[in-house]
């Protein structure tokens, strides 16, 4: 079976983006988007766990019994979350501090469990790794954009750099998190609807043009091709004429007999 990387990438990043389309993993999304850097950190941590757990689950998908698959998945995920925690604590203690409780909570993040359940346990290793990578990147992109939006409006900074001395504290608060999330989902849906509409219109136009041509020109081309009604009548007349001629011909034949 050939892996369709392009389709997996499109699914993970856009058409089933975990944050904006499936609305999974909302807890870290709402809590950690106060700063763009937190969004990137959280997103990359989740991406790493997602790739590794998807690969291992895909490897073990024929070994794990169906009835105990959820505990088995959680155990695998927890292993990688522990690795990420220890690594972050060693390498980037500041980020580790600011992610706080949400780092161990990756274990129960819906995105990872959903991808394990719906993709990795049914597909091959390479496809699962790609799926983990692109779903994780979709999550990271959404979190970073939301974090940047809230950081600029809520504290007048971007990635910790002061932009101006103006801020609307509402966007830094938890109510602002819900509001920003709603805005982003609405904007994303509006964009994807507009794209789908444009695509449909193009398809319709192509189909319609093909139909017109077949309607008009499959039959013997009539003399005046000015308007459609004329065309159809012309075709009809021509057909009638042919019928008449045919019947006439028959008549003449019988008469001859």
């Amino acid at each position, binding site marked *: 079976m050939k892996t369709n990387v392009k389709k997996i990438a499109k699914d993970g990043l856009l058409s089933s983006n975990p944050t904006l389309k499936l609305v999974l993993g909302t807890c870290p999304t709402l809590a950690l988007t106060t700063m763009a850097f937190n969004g990137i950190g959280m997103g990359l941590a989740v991406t790493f766990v997602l790739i590794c757990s998807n690969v291992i689950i895909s490897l073990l998908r024929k070994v794990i019994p169906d009835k105990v698959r959820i505990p088995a998945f959680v155990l695998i995920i927890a292993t990688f979350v522990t690795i990420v925690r220890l690594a972050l604590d060693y390498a980037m203690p500041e980020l580790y501090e600011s992610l706080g409780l949400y780092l161990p909570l990756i274990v129960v993040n819906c995105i990872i469990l959903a991808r394990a359940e719906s993709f990795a346990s049914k597909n091959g290793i390479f496809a699962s790794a790609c799926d983990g990578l692109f779903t994780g990147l979709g999550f990271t992109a959404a979190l970073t954009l939301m974090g940047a939006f809230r950081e600029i409006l809520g504290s007048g900074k971007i990635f910790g750099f002061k932009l101006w001395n103006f*801020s*609307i*504290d*509402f966007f830094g*608060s938890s109510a602002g998190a819900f*509001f920003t999330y709603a805005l982003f989902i609405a904007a994303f849906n509006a964009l994807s609807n507009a794209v789908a509409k444009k695509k449909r219109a193009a398809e319709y136009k192509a189909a319609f043009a093909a139909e017109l041509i077949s309607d008009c020109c499959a039959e013997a081309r009539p003399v005046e091709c000015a308007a459609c009604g004329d065309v159809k009548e012309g075709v009809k007349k021509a057909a009638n004429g042919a019928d008449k001629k045919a019947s006439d011909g028959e008549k003449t034949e019988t008469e001859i007999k």
Partner: protein
Amino acid sequence: MADNVQLLTYSPSPHIKHPRTTRRIMIDVCIALIPAAVMGVVYFGLKALLLIALSVISAVLSEAVYLLIRGKKIDEIIKKFDFSSCVTGLLMGLTVGTNYPWYSVIFGAAFSVIVVKMLFGGTGKNVVNPAVTGRIFVFMSFQSVVGKWIAPSVGSLSGGAVETGATIIEGLMKGSLPSLSNLDLFLGTGLPGCIGETCKLALIVGGIYLAVRKVINPLYPVIYVGVAGLFSVALKGFDFNYFLPSVLSGGLIIGAIFMATDYTTTPDTFTGNVVYFVVLGLLTAGLREATDMEVTSFAILLMNLLVPLFDKFIISRPFGYKRAGKVKGGAQ
């Protein structure tokens, strides 16, 4: 024959028409708010006038801009303008302090009109009161910049003074009676607070106007204020010295008369409304006691969200309807 045709009108129901339109009611509310606005300008100076004007203009403009984006024609917008955004802007301007930055009311008014009202479908479709929500938005967004409430330029009549910043509510809930007399609290002289909420006299005059014009039922604000005051007294161990100060300080009066009585965000039935305002009063007093802060707007917002619940469980009895009684002895 032609005359007969003119006499008959063909239209779908409803056939009974009343001169009271949304526009007329909203203009009445605007008129009722004028005394409070005038007293605010007298107490707090021209900055108050600037804030109120900016707030009204930006509320009306943001509604117009939203409708233009939605593809409405300008003459249609002007023809159907119902002054409800005017009321929202006016209330928004009256519930900030004069030390708020001038752009804060623009954000607040735009937020309350566009996000709270228009995105939910326009006048009469909003889930929560736009002015209350806009006020909370501004409060959450700019309170840290502003810091403290400032006192009006007119000093207190009794000679007592409140240091700028410490709200009366804060002191009151911590158990000390205010240094201002009840008359000062009633007139708002020397009382720090929002532009519109300080002079209770002007607000009550506006409320009486609304009650006379039958825009609001005067019973509801009275229930709200009374229950809130009595529950505060009860929480303070039935010390009735707390009744008037707790009623007259903070935004309770303006909230009770102009914000909680919004048609869209109150229950449909009389019983529902009475229960609603009693619960609102209990909630306001309880939250004040628990947080030592002025929470009238938060309490109204919270109760607005519960209105669908009131409408679901408290419904008016249809005429002639009898509840099916229980059969004695059970069905055996």
